[in-house]
């Protein structure tokens, strides 16, 4: 058999047997944690929205800042990373012919570490020992167990990443001369970014722990912030890469079309992996201690991410148009009507893509210095990331769930669930538009983020924010209904939907597609380039802040 035939044969086997039951249990377990985080985080979000509208006072035993710390960590770190690991482990299992037993065990160990991490973090927040936000900027000092929990989370992610690397390497050894399947390629890119992106924050946390135990007197505040954002900025692109993996691989199949150029898709992945880390300073544009020139270089780096994003935008519309026309769509826009709007597996990721147009534009705007200075730390920024993470990433994850969960649970995605899903998608979109829209507007007027309801002694300017903040509460109310619906759908698909077979959608290539060049498989080269660019962006500015006098700890909550 030649290689292509062998591939088809291999694919047939996995098709016939369906998902490996042990792999499915692992992925489903990650997804259970993910949706639990969504549920709790969503409820907390509603409480914040009601508070900021001046409608609801949080009790002293669980105040606004405890709520916000938990909301940020649960949704930003837990919901997204557990979903990504569950999804990509399922993808590796499906595309590489099952997880190796060793890798499956690593997956479980990773899961255990992450759960221990979440328990430590949650317990310290609830106990009021860690109201430090998901950014935990020193010299505010949380309980050492909070930081130790973070270490467990990071170690869990690393173990999951190395499991993925082992499985991919094993496949490559057995399929010499072949490209790894596209979705496994995305998974590799995401896990490479997770490992390299989290090195900075791991170093930061490891210096915070001895300080939190009192073994070290002071901490370098600016160094910690800088290390944090080397990670925080990368995390954003990790979600983005995770989301677009489904856009490139699954969505074309769902709409009955073919994938966009395999070669260009791989190029997008490599560009995102190489370019993304040295953009962190765009979160520190108005910080002291970093020179104007270094800030400018990071702004440039973070805008360079626009290039692969533009390629993605083109690719998506090319696929939609080609598919729509094949289905008989005529004229300039006739193809648009031919898309399966009634299928939530398409509708949800489509809205996710559409939201990235204003989301990305807003991102480009706020990255530029002067504009950043207008909106920095205002609710504008919160609006921006509810649009990008809350819509683009979250709706894509929901869109994936409609087929991934029944595929894993060997159940069927029914028309009833599809209908519920469409309602969910609309509620979520409208809720986020209300919330993110009013956040953008009131942020431009100066209303700060991370601030419980206040009128600053009835100051005129602050009172003028109130009408906008009401929309925050309205959006939050719609959103909580959408959260409950989504959690119901997920649970239903996991345990109650009728038994049956659901396909893992993977688009085929166009017949005239040209093959990806060999160098796209050279991950060693990609990683060397990544390290070189990280070094270029960080070595000098970090040396410049190494000898800033340290700060003793404070507990101001």
């Amino acid at each position, binding site marked *: 058999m030649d290689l292509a035939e062998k591939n088809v044969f291999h694919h047939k086997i996995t098709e016939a047997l369906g998902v490996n039951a042990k792999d499915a249990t692992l992925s489903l377990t990650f997804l259970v944690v993910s949706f639990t985080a969504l549920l709790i985080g969503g409820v907390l979000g509603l409480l914040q929205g009601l508070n900021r509208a001046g409608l609801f006072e949080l009790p002293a035993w669980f105040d606004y*800042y405890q709520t916000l710390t938990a909301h940020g960590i649960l949704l930003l770190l837990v919901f997204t990373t557990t979903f990504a690991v569950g999804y990509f482990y399922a993808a590796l299992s499906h595309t590489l012919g099952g997880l190796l037993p060793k890798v499956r065990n690593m997956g479980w160990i990773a899961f255990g570490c992450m759960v221990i991490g979440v328990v430590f973090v949650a317990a310290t927040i609830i106990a009021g020992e860690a109201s430090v936000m998901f950014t935990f900027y020193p010299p505010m000092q949380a309980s050492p167990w909070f930081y130790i929990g973070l270490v467990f989370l990071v170690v869990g992610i690393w173990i999951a990443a190395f499991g993925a690397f082992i499985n991919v390497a094993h496949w490559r050894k057995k399929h010499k001369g072949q490209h790894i399947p596209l979705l496994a390629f995305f998974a590799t890119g995401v896990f490479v970014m997770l490992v390299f992106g989290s090195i900075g924050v791991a170093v930061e946390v490891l210096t915070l722990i001895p300080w939190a135990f009192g073994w070290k007197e002071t901490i370098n505040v600016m160094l910690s912030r800088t290390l944090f954002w080397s990670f925080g900025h990368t995390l954003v692109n990790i979600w983005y890469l995770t989301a677009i993996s489904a856009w490139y691989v699954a969505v074309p199949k769902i709409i009955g079309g073919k994938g966009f150029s395999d070669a260009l898709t791989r190029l997008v992945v490599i560009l995102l992996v190489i370019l993304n880390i040295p953009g962190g300073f765009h979160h520190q*544009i108005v910080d*002291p201690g970093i020179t104007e020139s270094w800030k400018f270089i990071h702004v440039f780096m973070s805008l360079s991410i626009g290039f692969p994003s533009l390629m993605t935008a083109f690719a998506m519309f090319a696929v939609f148009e080609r598919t729509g026309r094949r289905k008989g769509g005529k004229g300039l826009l006739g193809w648009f009507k031919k898309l399966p709007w009634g299928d939530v597996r398409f509708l949800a990721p489509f809205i996710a893509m559409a939201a990235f147009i204003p989301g990305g534009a807003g991102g480009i705007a706020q990255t530029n210095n002067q504009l*950043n200075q207008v909106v*920095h730390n205002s609710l504008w920024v919160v609006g921006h990331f509810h649009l990008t993470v809350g819509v683009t990433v979250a709706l894509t994850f929901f869109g994936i769930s409609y087929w991934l969960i029944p595929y894993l649970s060997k159940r069927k995605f029914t028309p009833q669930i599809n209908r519920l899903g469409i309602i969910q998608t609309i509620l979520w979109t409208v809720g986020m538009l209300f919330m993110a829209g009013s956040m953008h507007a009131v942020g431009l007027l100066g209303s700060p983020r991370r601030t419980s309801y206040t009128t*600053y002694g009835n*100051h005129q300017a602050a009172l003028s924010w109130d009408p906008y903040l009401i929309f925050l509460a309205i959006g939050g109310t719609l959103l909580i209904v959408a959260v409950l619906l989504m959690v119901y759908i997920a649970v239903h698909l996991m345990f109650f939907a009728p038994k049956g077979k659901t396909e893992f959608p993977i688009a085929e290539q166009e017949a005239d597609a040209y093959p*990806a060049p060999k160098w796209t498989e050279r991950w060693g080269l990609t990683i060397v380039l990544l390290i070189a660019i990280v070094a270029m962006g960080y070595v000098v500015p970090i040396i410049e802040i190494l000898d800033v*006098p340290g700060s003793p700890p404070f507990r*101001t909550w």
Partner: protein
Amino acid sequence: MKLHRAEEIWLIVGVGIIILAMVFTGYQAFAHGMAPPSGMETLDPQKVDETAPFDNPGIFEVGADEYEVVMTLEAFRFNPNEIEIPAGSEVHFTMTSKDVVHGIQVIGTNINAMVTPGHVQRISQKFDTPGEYLVICNEYCGVGHQMMAMTIVVK
């Protein structure tokens, strides 16, 4: 790898816009001195009260219609916590934090800067329009963060 013609055009236009934004930002920053606040001097955050100029916070006239405000930030107050200046004044703020990370934002102006312990942060602003400007801390700094505010009165 080859691109479609349409994709080439799309990418060239897109990249062009991004580069234009960069050139504009760079030009404003470096040719017009509109770069973001980036104070580079350091001090020992445990000795703020003994370190000049923060041993004597306040408002100082440094020229015709020109003032320097030497200010410390701490949970949950600004010092000085009331500023009065004539309209048309140029004000240079020199700030540091005595404890955790704070931020200063003057609503209705472009003043927006992080103030961290260990660094001296500087930012300047001309106040032309009379009024009572709200000054807030815009970085979460603890349980009283929402109370950390003051006003600048421009007469």
